[in-house]
């Protein structure tokens, strides 16, 4: 890797995590800067981790056909992406950056959940691992909710406010078509007709035409189940079923241990809890936007 010729390198510091991104083509850094720009620092800081992007060159054949060059992304010496789409590679990089930034933040109760703010109260959307949660959150943001988190929310144990991470939403490729004013990325089909697995792609709150929300007190928990094709609906939830569903989404249960269960039970008993069955993302977003004000009430800090 050291034999490659690096065109440029950007250094960043995000929530105490120092990192750098270097690339053989500076145009790749331009794909990343819109999302990480506010965190740029003049030079890599002590203990930084380095992403290295060897950007493949596209080749134009006689007749005009273009073959995309193969690009490779490394984190340290570990290859973390190989493919032909630079935006995909940027998405992979940003997903890894988010993991690096949030993984150690165990002063928070971390939950695999989307979160938005309505009427000053946070709506928490815990969900099982999988796709579409960020797409749902993006639709909520376009529907007027303040953005907190797309798939990893942090609950402060002292004040019980919901915090996010100041990074872009990472939306699944197939949900882009649902978002107003956002260009759909290239959808690649394999020869057997199935879609390739594509890493989620970044979309900023600004691109969505939405707004960031400050950390807010929890107002409503809606446990999300994605069941495409079913009727989209909200059902009451509670008891052991809700506790199990919620703790399943806790990412640092191993840190908080027995306290996590007591804390989760406290949270669930102190606010409305629902189960959201998502048959269609736009319908679910509409339902949440309509229902949230009455569920959250008027929350004051």
């Amino acid at each position: 890797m050291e034999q490659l010729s690096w065109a440029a390198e950007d250094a960043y510091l995000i929530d105490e995590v120092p990192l750098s991104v270097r690339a053989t083509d500076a145009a790749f850094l331009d794909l990343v800067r819109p999302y990480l720009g506010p965190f740029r620092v003049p030079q890599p800081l002590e203990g930084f981790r380095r992403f290295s992007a060897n950007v493949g060159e596209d080749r134009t054949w006689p007749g005009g056909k273009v073959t995309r060059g193969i690009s490779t992304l490394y984190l340290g010496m570990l290859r973390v992406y190989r493919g032909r789409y630079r935006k995909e590679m940027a998405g992979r990089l940003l997903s890894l950056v988010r993991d690096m930034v949030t993984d150690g933040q165990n002063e928070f109760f971390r939950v695999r959940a989307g979160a938005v703010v309505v009427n000053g109260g946070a709506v928490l959307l815990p969900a099982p691992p999988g796709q579409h949660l960020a797409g749902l959150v993006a639709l909520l943001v376009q529907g007027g909710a303040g953005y907190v988190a797309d798939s990893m929310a942090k609950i402060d144990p002292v004040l019980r406010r919901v915090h996010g991470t100041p990074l872009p939403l990472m939306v699944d490729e197939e949900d882009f078509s649902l978002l107003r004013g956002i260009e759909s990325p290239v959808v690649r089909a394999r020869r057997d007709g199935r879609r390739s697995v594509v890493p989620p792609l970044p979309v900023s709150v600004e691109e969505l035409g939405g707004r960031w929300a400050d950390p807010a007190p929890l107002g409503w928990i809606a446990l999300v189940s994605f069941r495409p094709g079913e009727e989209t609906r909200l059902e009451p939830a509670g008891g052991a079923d809700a506790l199990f569903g919620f703790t399943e989404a806790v990412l640092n249960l191993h840190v908080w241990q027995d306290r996590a269960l007591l804390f989760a039970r406290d949270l669930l008993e102190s606010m409305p809890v629902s189960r959201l069955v998502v048959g269609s993302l736009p319908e679910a977003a509409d339902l949440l936007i309509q229902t949230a004000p009455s569920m959250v009430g008027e929350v004051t800090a």
Partner: protein
Amino acid sequence: MADLSTLWGALRYALRDLHQLAPKRSRDFLSVHAGAVTWNGGAVILPAGMDVGKSSLTAALVERGFGYLSDEVAAIDPMFDRVYPFPKRIWLDDEALAFFPGLGERLEDRRPLTAQVGQRFIRPEDLGGALGTASPVRWIVFPGTDRDGPPRLTPVGRAQAVERIAENAFNLYRYADRGVILLSRIAAEASILEVSGGTPPERAELLVEELAN
């Protein structure tokens, strides 16, 4: 400065470093440099810097029936404001050990490696005590540096207490303003005193009387 010229000096340095690294690195507790014991379902924390007498006062309290949580770190749970055990062995030097007649002979802490150590490592059972369990903070007692005269207690204001605990926190920067709110919440629920004068056992006797009231 650490004396690394002897085996014991290096060992002492390593142990102290390890014991401080854990609370500094810990994120799910607000860790305060303090002794901590339990009494009647509540915790007593003894925040202070180094060499003020936290360990000897903690040992004297454990000897009088208090549950042992730590002689070095009050691990405050930010979810429920309780103090959890950080039950390292209590470290006492010969000078402090003199306040506990017969204790030195009862200890089983001598090993070939530690035969020359200047300090002794004490379990709560060596003092006739036991480990305490996670408990809400009911008393905050600052061990004072003034050892002259008889033991005495003076009340401390809440704002001053929060400031003094914050000065002794290992990882307040992780919690920032939320940590100060947590400490304020704890101070609001606790009786706050400073103990000065007297020997560690005399201070402990005074606290037993005070807490019984």
